[in-house]
Structure formats: C-alpha cells, structure tokens
C-alpha cells in the first residue's frame, strides 16, 4: 500500500514537472504538436489511438504466429508508435511510463526478430499493453491538472532557482535518460547526462560537499562514469533504470541535506 502511494505520489510530481519543460526540450520525433496544450479535449482521440495501437501490434503478432519472422516487418511497430499523437502526450506528461512503452515495444520487436516462442512474444505484448494503459491514465491525470491550471505552460520554461528545485529538475532529466535509452537512442541519453551534470548538478556540488563529501563523490562517479558507460555499452534497460533509481535516491538524500543546510544559513540583511 505504501509502495503504491509512493508510486502515485511520484507520478503526480512527475506530471507536474512534465509539461513545464515540454516544448523547449529536444524530442526524438519532431515537433510535439499543439494538442499537448489541450490534453482534456484530446482524451477521446488518445483513447482511440491506444486501442488502435493495441490492435495493430496484435495483428503483427498474429502474422508472426502464422508465418514466422520472415512474414513480419517488425519495423512497422516503431512506425505505428511514432505516428500517433498520444506519443507526444505521454512523452511530455510522464516520462517514466513513456520509457516503459518503448521498453515493451522493443521487447516485442526483439522477440520477433530473434524468432522467440509465441508465448514469449505475448509476454512482451502484455507489458507493452499494460504500459499503454498506465500511460493513458497518466495523461488523463495530467489533463485534469492542466484544466485546473496546476501545470506550467509548455514553452514557458524558467530554470530552477533553489537547490531543491534544481534536484527535482535533475531527477526529471534522469527519467528522460531512461526514456532515451529505452528508445535505443544512447547518444541522446548521454548528452542529457552530460548537460544535466554541467548545467545543474555542478552548481549544487559546492554546497553539497560541505554537507556530505562522500555523497558528492558517489554522484560524481555516477554522472561521469557509471551511467554514461552503461549507456554507451547499451546495457539492458533494467540496468540503466537501476543506476538512475540509485542516483535519484542519492539526489533525494542530497535534497534533504541541502534543505536542512538552507535553514541554518544566516540572513542576508
């Protein structure tokens, strides 16, 4: 129960961050489209797209069951996913689930290309479908927030000011790293890691080193060695996610230390 609560809390926080950085970020699949500014009125359209995607993937798998891998063009799976508006809607709303969709899609594609047993392909299909439904839920939640004016407007980006805001932004960008790794775009993922380190984490290090030098040392290694190397070697997405989760745990610890330190800082005037 506690775990579910934490997951949904994380989703809410992630959604609140999502659209704030949407239109100025680099996306792999071109412009995100105006529809992300009116999520609520596009929910029926997104729902139809989710149904259509599930049907299209199922048809590919049915062909695979019938004719084997020679009878299937597995690249169409990527084309189907990249063609829908729902793609941008979830990418800008909640990146962790977006990464799961890519993971599931590549799971189906790889299983087909490797000629795996139908049962294993179906297993990947179930993961893909689950992540799609989860994504639709996340977009509906984001739409509600957008209606209530609780989301920052896409394109109105302002860099984080406080240390706490900076860490929230770093965590969000690390989620994007997982998403890009799941999309099998390792160089884009590495670029995000480097820019996050240089433009965000590096500005916190000075304050953080006074609080816990070994924590900084660990994160330095994570940002500059562990994560980029894993991405470069195209390690399995579960390993990438594990590294990122560990980094986010350390960053949350850093956030606590910095918040505490900030309270003990003397007044300016």
């Amino acid at each position: 129960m506690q775990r579910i609560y934490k997951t949904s809390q994380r989703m809410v926080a992630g959604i609140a961050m999502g659209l704030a950085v949407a239109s100025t970020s680099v996306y792999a699949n071109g412009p995100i489209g105006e529809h992300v500014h009116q999520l609520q009125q596009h929910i029926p359209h997104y729902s139809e797209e989710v149904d259509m995607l599930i049907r299209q993937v199922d048809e590919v798998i049915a062909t695979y069951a019938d004719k084997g891998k020679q009878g299937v063009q597995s690249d169409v799976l990527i084309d189907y996913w990249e063609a829908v508006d729902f793609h941008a809607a979830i990418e800008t709303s909640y990146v962790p689930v977006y990464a799961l969709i890519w993971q599931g899609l590549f799971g189906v594609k790889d299983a087909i290309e490797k000629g795996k047993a139908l049962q294993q392909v179906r297993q990947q299909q179930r993961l893909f479908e689950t992540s799609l439904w989860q994504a639709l839920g996340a977009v509906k939640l984001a739409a509600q927030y957008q209606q209530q004016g609780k989301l920052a407007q896409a394109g109105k980006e302002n860099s984080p000011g406080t240390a706490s805001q900076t860490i929230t932004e770093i965590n969000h960008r690390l989620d994007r790293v997982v998403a890009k790794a799941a999309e099998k775009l390792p160089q884009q993922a590495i670029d995000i890691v480097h820019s996050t380190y240089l433009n965000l984490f590096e500005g916190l290090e000075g304050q953080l080193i006074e609080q816990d030098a070994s924590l900084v040392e660990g994160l330095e290694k994570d940002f500059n060695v562990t994560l980029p190397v894993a991405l470069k070697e195209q390690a399995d997405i579960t390993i990438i996610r594990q590294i990122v989760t560990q980094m986010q745990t350390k960053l949350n610890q850093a956030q606590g230390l910095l918040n505490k330190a900030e309270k003990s800082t003397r007044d300016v005037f």
Partner: protein
Amino acid sequence: MHRRSFIQGIAAASFLTATPWARAFQSDQRMALSVEQLPSLTGELTLYLGRGEGGLYEKVLDAIRDRNPDLDLRVRRGATAALANTLVAEARAGVRRADLFWAVDSGAIGLVTANGLAKSLPPELTSQLKAGFQYPQWAPVTGRIRTLPYNPQRIAASAIPDSIMALADSQLSIGWAPAYASFQSFVTAMRLLNGEQQTADWLSAMKARSTSYAGELGVVMAVERGEVDLGLANHYYSLRLKAGKPQANIELAFTKNDAGCLVNASGIVCLSENSTAVNFIRYLLTQEVQSYLASEAYEIPLVNGVSMPAGLPGLSSMSPPKLDLTQLADLRPTLDMMRDVGVL
C-alpha cells in the same frame, strides 16, 4: 555617445547630492555601503540571472524583495551563456525584456557589452569596487581565483613552482578539467597574456602529465584522495571541502602574476535607462550582500572593507594578472586550440 554619458553623469551627480546615502560616496574612502544607506527600490525590474551558487543568489534576491515590498522583481533564470545569447538575439529583434543581467561569468558579460547593450554605470558606483575591478559598463559582484590545490601528504609546498608556465616542466602529476568553463576562461587568459604559441606548447606539455576530470570539484577530490599531486581549480571547492571535512588532505598554492592566479568575476550589467536597475546593483555591492556571499558561497568580495572567505589570504597578498575580464569572451580560439592539441 560621449554627450549621452555626460548627460547621464550630470543626472547621476544631481541625484547624488540630493540623497543622504550618496554622501557616503563623497568621502575619500570607497568602502562598501550598508544597505541602510540605500534608497528603497520601487517599480518593475526584470533580471536575467545566470545560474550561480545553487540557491544562495536566490536568497539574496529574496532578501532584496523582502526589504523592498514595492519592488516587482521578475527573474528569468538560465545558463549564463544562453541568456547572453538571448539578450543579443532580443536586441537584434528590437526587443528589450531585461533591465539587468547578472552573469556568473565575465565572458558572457563581454558578449553583452561588445554588442553595445550595456548602459554606463555612475562612476561613484564603480569606484566602490577594488582597483582592477572598475569597469564603466558593468559591475563585478564577486570573484574567484584560480588556484593550485595540492595534497600535502604527497608533495611539499616548496615543490610547487610559482609560475603556471613552469608547471609544465615539473615532475608533478596533475589533475585538470578541460571541459569546465572556468578552465577554458583560464586558458583564454593565458592566450591573451602569453600568446597563442606558448599556450599551445604549455597545453601539449601539460597533457602528458595530466589526468582529466569532468569538473573541478572532481579535480579537488582527486587531489585529496592522492590520485594526483596537484590540480588546477577555482578556490572555492577546496575551501568548501575543508569546511565539510576539516582533516581533508588539501592545501592551496598560488602562482604569481600570471593566468594561473587569474581572478575572474561574476558581474552585473544594466541594460536599461532605469534608476531602479542601477540602485539594484548598489544592493549587490553592499557590505551585507558581499559579506553574505563571502561567508556562505566562499566568493571573493570585490568591494573594500569586507572580509575574505575563511581560509583564503587577502586579495592584496595575491598577484592576479592585469586583464580586462570582458576579453575572456574570446573563447572560440581557445576551444579550437584545445581541440587541436587534443585536450578537448
């Protein structure tokens, strides 16, 4: 242009004689003012703020807001270089959104001043700054000095040359961070002071004995762990490491009168004819703000009468090179050289 400056000078002078806080400037001593001597800030002001020391600049802004309830201060934050480019692009498009630009790096200020966007500051404001840091079109806020952090368990202070050029001929193992912006500004300073050939030769010779790190905190920590004898880094990382870990194996050495002890600065530019913007700059140069940034961010105060951060000798005992810091904007040839030599 001259006439305009002259008129601004007259206006500033009239304002000075009419206000009690201005009389403080009229004494021979150019000491930092107290915030108590400054006028209240009113009206709207838009500040473009390059990312700095985590939340400490934010605390300064919050304190200024709290003290000036009639001030509507709007802040746009971003990477310093990106904001400088935005200001230039906005100006070319005939748009002016910012009244002030507070940059962590004087190179970015150079870009803005070179494009004619900066307004002249009143001489009585710039004269509060220490000698060598008085510029007519921008005000340095705080400084940072290039240092040689070393591990006293591995080498004695006497083994460290006091010339940055001589470091290349030493037998010391060195840590550096070529991708780090402050390092690139330091190499730019060397280019300007020593010329292209000497700088390229120095980089080549240093490359053979240096280990690269992503950032300068990484350099300092590598020195402390004993991975290398000595590093090239801004001063504040070592001071902060010492503050958090007093037993850390790290000391600071300084070169003399060369790029190795360059004092670079964060600074602020006034972009509009707005007396509130000029007075906002005065707040950043007060005893209180300068002292806060020195004690909390370990930055070097650049006005007279404010103590240096703990652990750093006085600026008067250092011998930074004489260099117009806005020239550090000339980064492109530096990056080309570093790539040619193979350190980037």
